[in-house]
């Protein structure tokens, strides 16, 4: 009898826990805490910034895009919110269906699976994209993002979504831009609050500074009160317009190769060999410097000590935690530091595998040689913007592309990987 009771109690306990305890709350957009604590954003400002972002961009379940963002509301409607399928078969909540488990609800690249992936999934919030047709600091075009979705990123966990209907891909592209613009706005708001708001001295009605009993001025926090302060609203709308302009400019910042320099599709073996040979010389020369990082064998075993922007930001943040002298800020920073993933170095691509993350067409490689890869140590060899000076001519860059494309097929292609160098060898001597 008592045994039955006990079993019953056990079952009740389990049932209660199942029903109540593990209920998943509605997803929320959480703050970019690395930016917040780096800019000394206190809890009150954090709340105010969250509220402004909520007003501008809504919540994960109730997205909102101000007309000023120029985003397509219809596409966002398909991509945002919880996953469901309408009677007619149209799918909703596409971002949560396909993307969120890696890229996270905020687009911070910290979904549940992110920690286990190498490379880490892209954090959309800085709005820096690697695989694109535009100049290094420019935003990607819609077509660039679409191509990444269609092809995936070979050699990484990012799969191809080529089987999705075009309308669903369009919706996801729009939502990625929405998360990016939101992320940019968040960082800009944090910096605006740091730069322009903060504490000020208080004055009495005669314009004299009010002092506390110790003779120190009494300080007052200037709130971020967008509801009441029309000036703050104006500034924020200007920041938004600047962010959106950056995205809109992408179509004018595409690198279009000179027609007469583009190698013919059909070339003789001798012509290709001549171009490859020129490219090889450039690869190893001190103008292009490819060898320094991709290594004397092209296995990506040259300079391996650097990080991409995302990892470097975290590395610098961790260094700032160790240096922090203010105990309150130090403790806030430590809490954030605990949530970060281990910092990884940027390993140059092994060019002998024939796997190209940004696409294997010659134009994809040309864009990378020309503009470099945004957010990574990989520099460009072409002009940094229209009319600027390039390191190589377009013809030379096409030679490099030909050489790189020949590497996987170079026979016999069995070079030995260079051994890592001892990083302390010189510093101890000095």
């Amino acid at each position: 009898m008592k045994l039955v009771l006990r079993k019953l109690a056990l079952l009740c306990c389990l049932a209660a826990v199942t029903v109540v305890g593990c209920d998943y709350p509605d997803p929320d957009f959480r703050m970019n805490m690395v930016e917040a604590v780096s800019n000394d954003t206190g809890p009150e400002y954090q709340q105010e910034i969250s509220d402004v972002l909520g007003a501008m961009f809504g919540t994960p379940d109730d997205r909102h895009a101000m007309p000023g963002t120029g985003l397509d509301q219809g596409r966002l409607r398909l991509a945002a919110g919880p996953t469901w399928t309408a009677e007619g078969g149209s799918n909703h909540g596409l971002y949560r269906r396909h993307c969120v488990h890696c890229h996270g609800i905020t687009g911070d690249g910290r979904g549940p699976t992110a920690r286990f992936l190498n490379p880490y999934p892209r954090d959309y919030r800085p709005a820096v994209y690697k695989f694109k047709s535009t100049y290094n600091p420019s935003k990607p075009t819609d077509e660039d993002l679409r191509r990444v979705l269609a092809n995936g990123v070979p050699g990484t966990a990012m799969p191809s979504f080529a089987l999705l209907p075009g309308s669903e891909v369009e919706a996801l592209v729009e939502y990625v831009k929405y998360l990016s613009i939101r992320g940019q706005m968040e960082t800009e708001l944090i910096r605006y609050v740091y730069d322009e708001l903060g504490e000020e001295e208080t004055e009495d009605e005669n314009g004299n500074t009010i002092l506390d009993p110790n003779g120190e001025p009494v300080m007052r926090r200037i709130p971020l009160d967008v509801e009441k302060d029309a000036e703050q609203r104006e500034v924020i709308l200007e920041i938004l317009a600047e962010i959106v302009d950056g995205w809109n400019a992408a179509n004018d910042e595409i690198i279009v190769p000179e027609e007469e320099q583009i190698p013919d599709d059909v070339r003789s073996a001798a012509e290709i060999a001549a171009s490859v040979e020129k490219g090889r010389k450039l690869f190893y020369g001190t103008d292009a410097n490819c060898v320094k990082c991709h290594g004397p064998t092209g296995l990506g075993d040259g300079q391996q000590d650097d990080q991409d922007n995302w990892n470097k930001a975290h590395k610098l943040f961790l260094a700032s935690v160790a240096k922090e002298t203010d105990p309150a800020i130090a403790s806030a920073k430590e809490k954030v530091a605990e949530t970060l993933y281990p910092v990884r170095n940027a390993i140059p691509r092994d060019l002998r595998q024939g796997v190209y993350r940004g696409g294997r067409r010659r134009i994809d490689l040309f864009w990378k040689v020309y503009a470099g890869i945004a957010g990574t140590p990989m520099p460009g060899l072409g002009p940094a913007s229209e009319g600027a000076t390039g390191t190589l001519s377009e013809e030379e860059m096409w030679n490099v592309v030909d050489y790189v494309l020949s590497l996987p097929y170079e026979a016999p292609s069995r070079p030995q990987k260079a051994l890592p160098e001892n990083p302390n060898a010189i510093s101890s001597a000095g």
Partner: protein
Amino acid sequence: MKSLTRSRGIGAVLFVCALVAASGCRQGDDLGPVADPDALTNIRAAFSQGGESADDSAAMPTGTGWATLKGRFVFDGVAPEMDPYNANKDEATCTINGKAPLQETVLVDAATKGLANVAIFIRKAPRVHESAASPATESAEFDQKNCVFLTHVFPLTVGQTMQIKNSDNVGHNTNIEGKNGFNQTIPAGGTIDFTPKKEETVPVSVRCSIHPWMLAYFLPRENGYYAVTGPDGSFEIPNVPAGEELELQVWHESATGPGGALVLNTPEAKKRKWSKKGRFRITLPQDDVEEIEITVPASALGG
């Protein structure tokens, strides 16, 4: 026997509860606040009314004439010894007689105690003198030798061209972070021009990915009201607006404030109402040549 069964039963219940508590209901490591639904609605309604241009009376110039601000930053304490750069690539070029050059994070002049590489600039100028409105020279050279950027803190007026030079016999790439974003290979012995378009509020880092120990800072500003202290810690900003309050931002690479803001708590800094963001305000009489001396204790640079 009976009590044993009972304790086992209770144990099982506790165990299950503990297990669930420990693992099942973990809600992730989300930090930070979430938008408040009421505040969100009210702010959204306010946004729909649009904004209002800043009250221009505050920014309107109230003074006339010009003045000069000059001075010195003096280090107070034992100057830290600089470690050599970790030059572990291209040693033939990047070391001198097998020794790597010394880092430049804190440079103190032995004779005068002057602190070099402090950036000081007017945050928002109410008026701009013509000499500061357009750069004196069209371009400025930014060179690198022995895998060291020769100008550690490099300011520039937007519109000026930065001539990025490579005086080494190995290739470099110059990777500038921030709003302008630049990352291009600079051939051995070559020069590449770069014309930044956007202002930064504090200096941003300049690196070389091929030699990751290389580090400098870049400060593009809309007008010429900036200075970087020389080896003796001195600086001069000529033709600044007189008769009205100017707010100056002070920055040093190793300063402990956010983004490198030089925060000072000395009595003289308190007198200047030096802020926690490394800023102070000053009003200069017309045609005045104001000389200020600012003491920087070692603790302000994390020492």
